[in-house]
């Protein structure tokens, strides 16, 4: 698996040399960002067992804060990321503390996080003066990167390709680091049997909160970049359908693995472009894929590859 990931990364690094088409690059860029969201979501969902519906909210809130700081207040893009992530961190700590103190599990946790997420969406939708309401904000600025030859604006497909690839690598490495440390063991214990974990002396509350906060902040990191590539931020970024898309990517790719959600994100981002579909049909396709995956391959694409290899 390790070699497969290394080869995949190498291929991703070299791909822009061959694929010049802007539309291919754009799909890859969106897929990298979707994959970053899916990987960070899977830390909370797949590895800690908490079905968070707050992921899109973390993503959207951060996207709004960075955009507003840059376009309205004239901040430097990179500087604006810090307060955005700080706000996401605080929000996730508040929501997490409430949910985990009251020991909300499974669907109760999902419903309560969904409610918090909706509250944030409604605030953004109605705070016209700051967020421009349902119209959203158009982003024309481009982040620039300081280099020895001066500031270079990050514009154009190839620059964004490498930037978002780097983003995915950062998210992946952070999650990998968390999961391969002792924290990962504690998260596994909580996922498998949190009462037993508590008996063994694991501070279940603390580790659930830690996982939720890390995952949410990483989603915030993706949000910080997203608006600057897509060119606008809108309340839809915080919506439940976006949260469901992330779940679909994770389920399709493989819940129990780190690389699974990356594969799932690529398939679900590229699929609608490969097969031209209207929005309604796309949702129908998502539904069908989810049903299919749950029935036929509960461990996702990664599980299918793994079992084939084990059988051979």
């Amino acid at each position, binding site marked *: 698996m390790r070699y497969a990931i290394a080869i995949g990364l190498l291929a991703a690094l070299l791909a822009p040399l061959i694929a010049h088409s802007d539309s291919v690059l754009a799909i890859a860029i969106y897929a990298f960002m979707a994959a970053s969201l899916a990987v960070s979501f899977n830390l909370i969902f797949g590895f800690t067992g908490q079905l968070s519906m707050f992921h899109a909210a973390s993503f959207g809130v951060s996207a709004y804060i960075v955009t507003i700081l840059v376009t309205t207040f004239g901040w430097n893009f990179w500087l604006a990321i810090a307060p955005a992530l700080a706000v996401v961190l605080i929000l996730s700590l508040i929501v997490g503390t409430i949910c985990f103190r009251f020991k909300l599990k499974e669907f109760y946790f999902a419903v309560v996080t969904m409610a918090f997420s909706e509250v944030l969406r409604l605030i953004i939708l109605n705070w016209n003066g700051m967020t421009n309401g349902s119209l959203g904000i158009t982003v024309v600025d481009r982040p620039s990167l300081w280099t020895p030859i001066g500031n270079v604006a990050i514009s154009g497909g190839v620059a964004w390709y490498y930037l978002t690839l780097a983003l995915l690598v950062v998210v992946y490495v952070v999650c990998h680091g968390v999961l391969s440390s002792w924290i990962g063991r504690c998260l596994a214990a909580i996922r498998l049997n949190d009462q037993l974990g508590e*008996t063994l002396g694991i501070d279940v509350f603390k580790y659930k909160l830690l996982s939720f906060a890390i995952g949410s902040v990483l989603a915030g990191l993706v949000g910080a970049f997203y608006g600057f590539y897509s060119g606008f931020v809108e309340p839809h970024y915080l919506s439940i359908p976006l949260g469901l898309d992330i779940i679909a990517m994770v389920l399709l790719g493989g819940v129990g693995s780190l690389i699974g959600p990356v594969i799932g994100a690529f398939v679900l981002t590229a699929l609608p472009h490969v097969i031209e579909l209207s929005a309604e049909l796309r949702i129908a396709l998502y539904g069908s894929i989810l049903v299919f995956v749950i029935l036929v391959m509960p461990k996702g694409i990664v599980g299918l590859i793994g079992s084939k290899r084990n059988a051979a």
Partner: protein
Amino acid sequence: MLDVTDLNVSYGKQKVLRGISFELRQGEVVTLIGPNAAGKSTTLRTLAGLKRSDSGKIAFDGGDMASISTAERVKCGLVLVPEGRQIFPRMSVHENLLMGAYHRSDRDHVEDDIERIFSMFPRLRERSTQRAGSMSGGEQQMLAIGRGLMSRPKLMLLDEPTLGLAPIIIEELGRIIRNLAKEGLAILLAEQNAVMALGCADRAYVLQSGDIVTSGDAKRLSEAPEVKQMYLGA
């Protein structure tokens, strides 16, 4: 080392423990015997901090336990091996043992401790990489005890360890408990199997509907007519 005074616990309106008091000294094996629903598991769960008490004092090693979390109690050296051989069935034996040592700061010595547990339970060493769920009930119980030992406890709370085990395994379990006590570990054993419990304990408390009805030397109790009649089937 453990001093419980006037402990009251209830589930909702149902009173489960009605002001029980008992004590336990270092290296001592004390058993709580009694029928189903007497409050044995509740006592252990309350001591471990998994269940809140209504009132009463739990003093352990000189400190007051009542207000601190389970995690902190484990750090103080008070660990529960829960009922029903709870292990992580999909993890390997080795990983299960690691889970017992998670909070320790001296992680360098964890492998030494695993080695020590393997020499205590040679069957676990043979199955070190095997999935824990694929082992026999007796082996799973040994693993649960071994995992409890990984936290380097001073007092181990054992909840119904003989449940559903073959007589020969139960005998072995009794020997293991005696050996652990010889090394200085205090053990509080909650058991329905009074023969086994009175056979390996120093002292015993008989619990009935949330009250301690009799207590004393385990050997003496096992000969007391009322205990004999009720729990030993004689």
